[in-house]
């Protein structure tokens, strides 16, 4: 268990949190400048807290009161840097071996462990390449390999997807999920994009201005946002589904759990299990089936209406079981015009291009 309760004065804000992390992935999300990266740097030992402590499995790593500080290399904590920070002058295998070399692991064992790790992440063929010669997604795997090979007792990832372009991003997000699902250590993933947080939705800690704004599962944050800010930040619809086939218009037919079908451009995604994300402000609601240009139109039932100052968040059930829900955010006027009482049937419409599809 990782327990952090640091206090650190930054330029504009004071970072002050008190959090514990169990094994598994916790997503640390928030706008830029919220103190997320600083928190990671403190846990990694690169920045010292003004006050408070950092403990890992009961071992004290930092204590602001006594000035005790264990240097970064002796914490058994690995950090995957934003942009990955691979050493450009070293080959992939030497990047991955770097930490073992620092620990004076004998050459033969080093080679064996590096090969095993590269194999595990499917990048053995890149061993002799330099970081500049490989793709963004491959670089991320090298960074993960370099971090995981030390068998750390906690893993930190700073914006692991921010360095990628939108297309590779969706794919790498899925890969990251499967790699991190295997780790049995406290893992902190920092991101400013809530869509990333939705990949690891069990525990999301929202940091705003150096404080914890909310801490809970995605469903808690979505249904009961502690503030308008959280509501805006978290308001992303997220579906699991099955990409069934491509139709002639470069659109894929996706069947969501519960049987509803939607159409979306899913460039580069193969048929199979997929995740679909949709911002609630992309959804329009009408009492009759819409005749407009929106490719997707679903009949659904109003479950709850949450006013959000000038706008309203409408929770809709996509099927009778109520397992699949859709959140639409519309203006208060629109909501009043619709009538919008619970149980009412409405048609939710959204453009195919508003959907973000990624392989699961």
């Amino acid at each position, binding site marked *: 268990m990782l327990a952090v309760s640091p206090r650190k004065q930054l330029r504009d804000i004071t970072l002050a949190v008190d959090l514990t992390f169990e094994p598994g992935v916790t997503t640390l999300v928030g706008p830029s400048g919220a103190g997320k990266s600083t928190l990671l740097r403190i846990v990694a030992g690169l920045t010292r807290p003004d006050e408070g402590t950092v403990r890992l499995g009961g071992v004290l790593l930092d204590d602001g009161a006594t000035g005790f500080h264990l240097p970064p290399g002796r914490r058994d904590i690995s950090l995957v840097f*934003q942009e990955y*920070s691979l050493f450009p002058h070293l080959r992939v295998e030497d990047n991955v071996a770097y930490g073992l070399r*620092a620990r004076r692991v004998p050459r033969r064992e080093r080679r064996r462990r590096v090969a095993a790790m590269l194999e595990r992440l499917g990048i053995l063929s890149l061993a002799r390449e330099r970081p500049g010669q490989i793709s963004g997604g491959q670089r991320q795997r090298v960074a993960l390999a370099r971090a995981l090979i030390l068998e750390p007792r906690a893993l930190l990832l700073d914006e692991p997807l921010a360095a990628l372009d939108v297309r590779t991003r969706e794919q790498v997000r899925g890969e990251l999920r499967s790699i991190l699902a295997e780790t049995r250590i406290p893992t902190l993933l920092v991101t400013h994009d809530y869509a990333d947080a939705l990949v690891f939705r069990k525990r999301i800690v929202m940091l705003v201005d150096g404080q914890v704004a909310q801490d809970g599962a995605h469903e808690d944050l979505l249904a009961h946002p502690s503030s308008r800010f959280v509501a805006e930040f978290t308001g992303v619809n997220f579906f699991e589904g099955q990409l069934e086939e491509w139709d002639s218009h470069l659109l894929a037919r996706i069947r969501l759990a519960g049987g509803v079908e939607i159409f979306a451009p899913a460039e580069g995604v193969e048929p199979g299990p997929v995740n679909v994300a949709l911002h609630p402000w992309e959804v329009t609601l009408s009492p009759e089936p819409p005749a407009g240009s929106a490719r997707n139109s679903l009949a659904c039932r109003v479950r709850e209406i949450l006013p959000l100052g000038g706008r309203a968040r409408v929770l809709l059930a996509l099927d009778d079981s109520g397992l699949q829900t859709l959140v639409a955010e519309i203006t208060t006027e629109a909501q009043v015009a619709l009538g919008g009482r619970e149980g009412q049937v409405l048609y939710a419409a959204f453009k195919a291009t508003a959907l973000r599809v990624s392989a699961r």
Partner: protein
Amino acid sequence: MRSFRSTAGPGILAGAGRVLIVLPASALLLFIGFPLVALLLHTPPGTLWSSLNTQSSLDALSLSLQTTSLTLALTLLLGTPTAYLLARRRFWGKRFLDSIVDLPIVVPPAVAGVALLLAFGREGLLGPTLNTLGIHLSFSTAAVVMAQLFVACPFYVRSARAGFIGVDRSLEDASATLGYGAWGTFRRITVPLALPSLISGAVLTWARALGEFGATIMFAGNLMGVTQTMPLAVYLNLESGDLDGAVALAVVLVLVSLVVSLVVRLISE
């Protein structure tokens, strides 16, 4: 020619514009190149060799090699930490320190020689102290090295500082989280990544030390075998009417300079 085209564009090189650019450029290049050609053509290679093969020339050559090597070693030893400090740390008075380091580049070498004399010479500020310790710096080989170090080390420090600034700090952080301390990180990450700047700075410093004349003659004098480096020997030969001897050493210096500027160019590209 490539960069000339890309900066000027095709338009300005047409018609009357062409004359305005090509003419001054050719004039300047000729002005620089012509004296060097004159120097290289003056003496036939055979005479060149025999002029070089005299005791005074060989002494000057050997003294220049020894002193510049020592200067380079001292520059690397003292300049590298200085450059790292200036590149990485923020502290009070850093800007002042930055300009102190750059100062010897703009101060006339003769002035530097006088300054050194007034600091370390027999009548200088430290003179009495050094005298009681039995150390006589001025007009010694040590003085030659000091003069070279004074005028030449800034070239290395400047270049190394720029090189260190160019190394992404997060790479050093990454190295720290992976288990290396400050020294290990410096040796394995910072230096290899700044290496082109370190090498070109070192080459420039060495070349500047090799050509050093003004500060040396002021502070160290012109004693054969003790303080008479190649540029000083060129001067003495010319004064005493041995033109061939002067030219022989000058040709060596020009060839070395040519190689140096090519090396620096190759490294920086």
